């Protein structure tokens, strides 16, 4: 942690960056995102097991970008998000300074995208056992049970869009759900509107989601939304052999194809 603080201080002092996005003490038990712009305040930066938020969501935020060049404290989720943003041409190598951090708080020097790619290759990024368990639970259900289970979950939704706002991959300036010509998704938070919204969200994240779980964490109604996107990660792996968010120049699995792609479901 001291390394991170020292590095952040240095970057701010020599004006390499104008803001360091990192974790600071929150009002409750969990740490919160802080934006350090003053070298003297870098000791506010912390890192421990309560630092959970995927900070990559701030990289493209208008007012944060407006502050100047960014340095970001980057857990593996942040790094993978950066890889996706890079592969989707939202970030160029050198646009930001990455202060890599291991899960136990050690600083890793990651000067460029190549270094991030190499570092990520050493990590085990498959979904966790707990996540696998949940998927298994739902997979074991009958179709009717799954329908009822999800409808019950969706019925809690009131469309605050915290799932969308918290997601670093949801950076579209105009979301499909905000489009009213045509009105793709009903604005109202009724059963159909909720289901279509969550289906659309999951589909638009298929092959892009890196499994940071922010959507479910952000949901004030505790809907396990990340299950939908975990499922997609599983699919990507199984069908296309792709692990998302490992390379800065990866091709989006759904904008490419192979001649031999499975088609046993097609008559």
């Amino acid at each position, binding site marked *: 942690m001291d390394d991170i603080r020292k590095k952040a201080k240095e970057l701010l002092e020599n004006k390499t960056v104008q803001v360091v996005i990192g974790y600071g003490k929150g*009002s409750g038990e969990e740490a919160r995102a802080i934006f350090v712009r003053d070298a003297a305040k870098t000791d506010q930066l912390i890192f421990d097991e309560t630092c959970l938020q995927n900070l990559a969501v701030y990289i493209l935020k208008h007012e944060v970008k407006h502050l100047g060049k960014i340095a970001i404290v980057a857990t593996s989720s942040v790094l993978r998000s950066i890889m996706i943003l890079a592969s989707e041409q939202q970030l160029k190598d050198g646009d930001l300074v990455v202060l890599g951090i291991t899960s136990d708080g050690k600083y890793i020097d990651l000067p460029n995208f190549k270094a991030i790619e190499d570092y990520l290759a050493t990590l085990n990024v498959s979904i966790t056992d707990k996540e696998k368990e949940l998927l298994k639970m739902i997979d074991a259900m009958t179709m009717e049970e799954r329908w009822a289970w999800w409808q019950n979950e969706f019925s*809690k939704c009131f469309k605050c869009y915290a799932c969308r706002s918290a997601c670093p991959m949801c950076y579209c300036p105009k979301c499909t759900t905000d489009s009213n010509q045509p009105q793709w998704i009903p604005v109202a938070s009724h059963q159909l509107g909720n289901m279509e919204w969550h289906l659309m969200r999951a589909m638009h994240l298929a092959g892009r989601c890196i499994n940071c779980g922010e959507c479910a964490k952000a949901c004030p109604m505790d809907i396990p939304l990340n299950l939908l996107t975990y499922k997609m990660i599983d699919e990507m792996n199984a069908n296309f052999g792709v692990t998302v968010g490992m390379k800065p120049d990866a091709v989006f699995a759904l904008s490419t194809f192979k001649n031999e792609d499975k088609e046993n479901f097609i008559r």
Partner: protein
Amino acid sequence: MEIEKKLLKKASLEKLFEKLKADGKKMYAPVKKDKLVNFALVDTFGEICDDYILTVKSAKSVAFPKIEKIVDYEHSKNSSKAIDIDVSNFPEVVLWGVRPCDAVGFDSLDAIFTWDYKDNIYLARLEKTSIISFSCFKSDNNCFCTSVNGNPGGTKGSDILLTKISNGDYLVEIITEKGKQIIAKAPELFEAAPTEEKDKNLTNVPIKFNVKDITENSAKFFENDLWVEQSLRCIGCGACAFVCPTCACFDIQDESAGKNGTRLRLWDSCCFSLFTMHTSGHNPREVQSQRWRQRIMHKFSYMPERLNVVGCIGCGRCSRACPVDMNISEHLINLAEEVKK
């Protein structure tokens, strides 16, 4: 009307519930489902949860639901007509287990929905609602009702307020005519008021700031770096507004099925960029700091000035629901300090 006090024995609480239920009213009470406590329709007393500080969502939806029909219509190429909705068949509802802060919240909603133009749909729903509140015996760091003129045992907004006293019985305060009518359904359950003081059974919510510092000096705030500073980590979702008992901003949308359709009123949030976006693409509140400012100023400046009521009741729900720890009381303390500079 003067508040009348009675005693309700612990064992009689369920009987009161049964009586009201038997009277044909829809009972709407806090229920714990999948770890969250929220208001829901209940059939039996046993479903009700009593161990909670506050429900995740507020009680406002009973009069201002997330989806509300405001007009029906029929439309075809050559003829279209709007059809008024029938507010007289809204159900009679008892809102059970409301916290005093939520009850005060209806005052803020009233102020908005009756500002010159009286919203008959909201008023009809509220008129059919009886509010039975329970004083708070628990609170957490997010609570700040006492800083916005509230009180964990406040009677304002409720029809009946129950406060659990040391032996487990309830001190009953009958606040309104509606409350009286409820008591009249089961007069045999009520006894002479206990002598025990109410206040010592309430949780202590420390005063965090002086709300007048903010409401009376709001002109100083509009142009202030504070807003950007506070809202940098805000991600612009609507969680705060949707759980808020006093947020009343809404959207209007049409939904059709064939020739028939419904015009709906839906919850909306000033934190969404689309909220104020013109068709031309021009947006008067273009960035999140402006939208965050709007949220705070609306509650602590515009509403006090225009409607004579503070638009916040200090429940702290927004702080609990916020995915990025935007803590409202912390920001209000900042504002109050800013005045002293």
